[in-house]
């Protein structure tokens, strides 16, 4: 490489294009600095700084949402590609991290744990997610994905006094490493075949999406490339929790602190789908293979998630498994997106509705959870509606939206994805999805039933004391506003999709 090329490459870097990510990183470092500088008594303001900082970045991002000069451009020599979907996902991940931070304040107050690191890691992970969603190169994809995964290793086992949390951390570490290895192996195979100078259509940039695409197009039935594609898909399936790579979900979701579970369930899953959607055009020459693999996965994921969730009593496991089924519906949308660009908009709308509903439910769970965060049972919700009507109302809206019941946002998400699947002619998958939705009614309503319908309790034996009431954390101001906003958002978006749907679906 000559000096001129290097200079040209450096000139192509355009650091300003990733201002939001850099701002998040600076904010993360600032939190650590504040912890050293501030006296211990004033540490309580650090989380507030984190939330305020993220709100500021979100506001700046919203102002430059369409005005940014980097739209539809490659920067950093093709490592990144900035698109409107990328802008949407940046906002999506920022909103999730703000909500996780708010939940973190509530949850960490009950634990004797270092506080600041939690917010620091959440910020770093969020920045990595943003980069991942915009990556156009397998190197950046892997680096960003590993940053996320390593951050989650720490977050999952954050309540280190709790053995279940540690177990979850270990499981996530082992299985996460395995999935990274599979993904990396797939990437290397693709790199190897498309970088082979003797092969037809070989490329001198075998790590870039464009290069790999060029090779795949020229060799539509290369065996090693097919294996590589399947391995890459398998690695991503781990992140989104699709069958048969869903085994880590229930244990890790249960053991992780509730805010982290929410982060995993929403942002990590969305990141996986962002990567998948980004890779679809790259793998286009192998569309038949991708369709087969993803269709089988989608059907199995929908059925497994719903069937396994039916018998759960621990609400964190229940949400984990129901989240698996949501991944299945979304995968159906991804299959449709191969032939129908509009399906991508449907997936992003679904994800946003899923964000609103999931965070509403997780926020309620964070308030209900006791010191032992891993043990949250349906029984803890007995007479919940009478004792805590506000939380119960938010819970019902969140669960109803997850179940896909009109007039809530979740229904519109499902409708858009189902219409996309219908247009793409995926009738068998649609039939499975319908079965899944009806099954899901059982467990979502079982939870609402536990919270709303007064239940029979065995009479006290002589000498037995009334069982101790689990103390529900009182709702603070910021958490209360967040809960209300999530519930109202789910309802309003169900009635009036307005510019969001128009913008997402026009493509």
């Amino acid at each position, binding site marked *: 490489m000559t000096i001129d090329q290097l200079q040209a490459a450096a000139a192509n870097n355009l650091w300003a294009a990733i201002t939001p990510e850099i701002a998040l990183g600076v904010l993360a470092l600032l939190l650590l600095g504040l912890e050293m500088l501030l006296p211990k008594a004033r540490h309580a303001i650090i989380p507030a700084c984190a939330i305020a900082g993220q709100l500021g970045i979100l506001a700046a991002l919203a102002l430059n949402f369409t005005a940014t000069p980097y739209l539809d451009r490659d920067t950093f020599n093709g490592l990144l590609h900035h698109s409107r979907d990328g802008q949407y996902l940046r906002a999506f991940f920022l909103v999730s991290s703000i909500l996780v931070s708010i939940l973190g304040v509530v949850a960490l107050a009950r634990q004797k744990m270092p506080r600041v690191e939690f917010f620091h890691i959440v910020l770093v992970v969020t920045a990595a997610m943003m980069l991942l969603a915009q990556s156009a190169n397998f190197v950046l994809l892997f680096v960003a994905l590993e940053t996320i995964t390593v951050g989650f290793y720490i977050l999952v086992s954050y309540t280190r006094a709790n053995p279940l949390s540690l177990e979850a951390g270990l499981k996530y570490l082992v299985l996460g490493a395995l999935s990274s290895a599979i993904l990396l192996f797939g990437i290397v195979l693709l790199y190897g075949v498309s970088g082979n100078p003797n092969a037809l259509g070989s490329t001198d940039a075998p790590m870039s999406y464009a290069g790999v695409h060029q090779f795949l197009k020229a060799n539509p039935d290369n065996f090693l490339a097919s294996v590589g594609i399947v391995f890459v898909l398998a690695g991503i399936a781990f992140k989104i929790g699709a069958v048969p790579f869903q085994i880590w979900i229930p244990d890790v979701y249960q053991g992780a602190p509730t805010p982290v579970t929410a982060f995993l369930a929403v942002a990590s899953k969305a990141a996986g789908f962002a990567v998948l959607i980004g890779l679809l055009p790259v793998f286009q020459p192998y569309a038949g293979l991708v369709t087969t693999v993803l269709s089988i996965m989608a059907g199995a994921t929908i059925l497994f998630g719903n069937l396994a969730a039916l018998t759960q009593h621990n609400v964190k496991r229940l949400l984990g498994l129901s989240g698996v089924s949501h991944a299945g519906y979304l995968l159906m949308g991804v299959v449709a997106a191969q032939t129908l660009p*509009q399906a991508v*908009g449907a997936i992003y709308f679904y994800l946003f509705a899923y964000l609103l509903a999931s965070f509403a439910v997780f926020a309620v769970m964070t308030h209900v959870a006791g010191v032992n965060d891993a043990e949250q049972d349906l029984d803890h919700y007995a007479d919940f509606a009478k004792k805590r009507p506000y939380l119960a109302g938010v819970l019902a809206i969140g669960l*109803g939206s997850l179940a896909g*019941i*009109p*007039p809530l946002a979740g*229904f519109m998400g499902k*409708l*858009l994805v*189902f*219409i996309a699947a*219908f*247009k793409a002619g995926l009738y068998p998958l*649609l039939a499975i999805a*319908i079965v899944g*939705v*009806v099954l899901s*009614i*059982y467990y979502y*309503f*079982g939870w*609402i*039933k536990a919270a*709303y*319908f007064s239940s029979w309790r065995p009479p006290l034996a002589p000498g037995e004391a009334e069982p101790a009431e689990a103390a529900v954390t009182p709702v603070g101001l910021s958490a209360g506003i967040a809960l209300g906003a999530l519930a109202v958002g789910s309802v309003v978006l169900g*009635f*009036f*999709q*307005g*510019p*969001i*749907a*128009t913008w997402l*679906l*026009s493509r």
Partner: protein
Amino acid sequence: MPDLLLLSILAPLAAALLLLVPAPLAARKFIAGVGFAIPALIALYLWSQFNPTGGASYHFVSRYDTGLKDALGITLYLGLNGIALPLFVLAGVVGLAAGLYAIQSKAERLPLYLGLLLVMQAGLMGVFASMDVFFFYFFHELALIPTFIMVGVWGGRDRGYAAMKLTIYLTLGAMLSLIGLIAIYQQSGAETFDLLALRQELAHGSLAAGEQKTIFGLLLVGFGILVSLFPFHTWAPLGYGAAPSSAAMLHAGVLKKFGLYGLIQIALPLLPEGVGHWVGWLALLAVGGNVLYIGFVTIAQRDLKQMIGYSSVMHMGYAFLGIAAYNTIGLGGVVLMMVAHGLSVALLFLLSTSIYHRTQTFDMDDMGGLAQKAPVLAAFFVTATMASIGLPGLANFWGELAIFVGAWKFSAVYTTLAVSGVIISAVYGLRSVARIFFGPVTPAFAKVSAEKAPADLAWGEKMPALLLLVALLAIGFWPKSLSTPVDTAITATFRK
């Protein structure tokens, strides 16, 4: 003026939101009453303004964009034609009656109960005012969800089980019909849910006969589950048995008609070539299952609410027979019958709860001689039963008569069998009257009335009952007020 339809949907929703604001109970009751009254008044006003000469065309049309117009061709498109108008009026009247009855009830957490009823009312008005197939479905679900919650929280015996069963059955039915509707949207290539545009598009034969057959089958099963077509009826008696009275009134009286309305307004006109394949099965299930089999099951009931629930399942058989007949007289009869049955079954559910408050039981074997203590209640109940049997002078007679006339052209055998079902209704109807109101006082009832002497109907109960009764009589003596718009619209829609 065209915004009146939107107002009839938004007013109950606004009232439901206002009920969340802490206020004295009396003020909240007043707000709820206004919320129920506005849609009823709008419905009656629009009825008086309705010009029936327009054939199948829609009146009072308005359109609003909710953000899905460009991408999916979905808009909130409101209007009434001659088929929708009677049901819109039904929804307004029964809603007001159910609301008034709920306001005077002493239900626990009354504001929440009223709020849910108001949401349901908004959904019902929306269902029959929608000209967009998507919103037609959407509003149905909006009305359905509160039903589940009301059964589960305020229900009677077996409420948990009943709520769950109701939820799963009705969700399945709704999902199947949604897939059927999406199939019409997609396969026709119209790319719109606008009912009029769909009719125009499909008039060019853009759906092959085979596709029409499949889609009609999907819609028939989906809507059939929602209307308790045999053998998918088991949720209905159980659910109505457990539901609190106002919820049962609104669901059995109005919401259940959604499926029949969907068949007449959407499935039959859009998929004419799919119908013929299914009418044989439909008539068999309707007459053999709903009318005769369920008829006998109804006779065997001891529980008053279960009996009314089963009888409503049985009457749906007549409606399905009228649809199977698939001619203008039969279909017109179905629309009339939907209105008449809605009024009479709502009245019966209302009165059964009033009876319960006096006898402390729904078991008819433990009642007897109530007429001496509550003659007005007895008079109401006898009239409602007569209406349900189909006595001339009450609304139901005209509906059933038209269905039988229409069905005769379709099949004389089925019609004869269905007419004999009227005898079955007479048996259980008259027997229930005898067991509840006449005869010797049973020991159980004597004990209850010794503790607290049963009073006759109070004004709070009489008002909603009167409202329904007047409507039944008005249509019974002056059927033309409804049959003219229905007839012109049906004739124009199904002109061959």
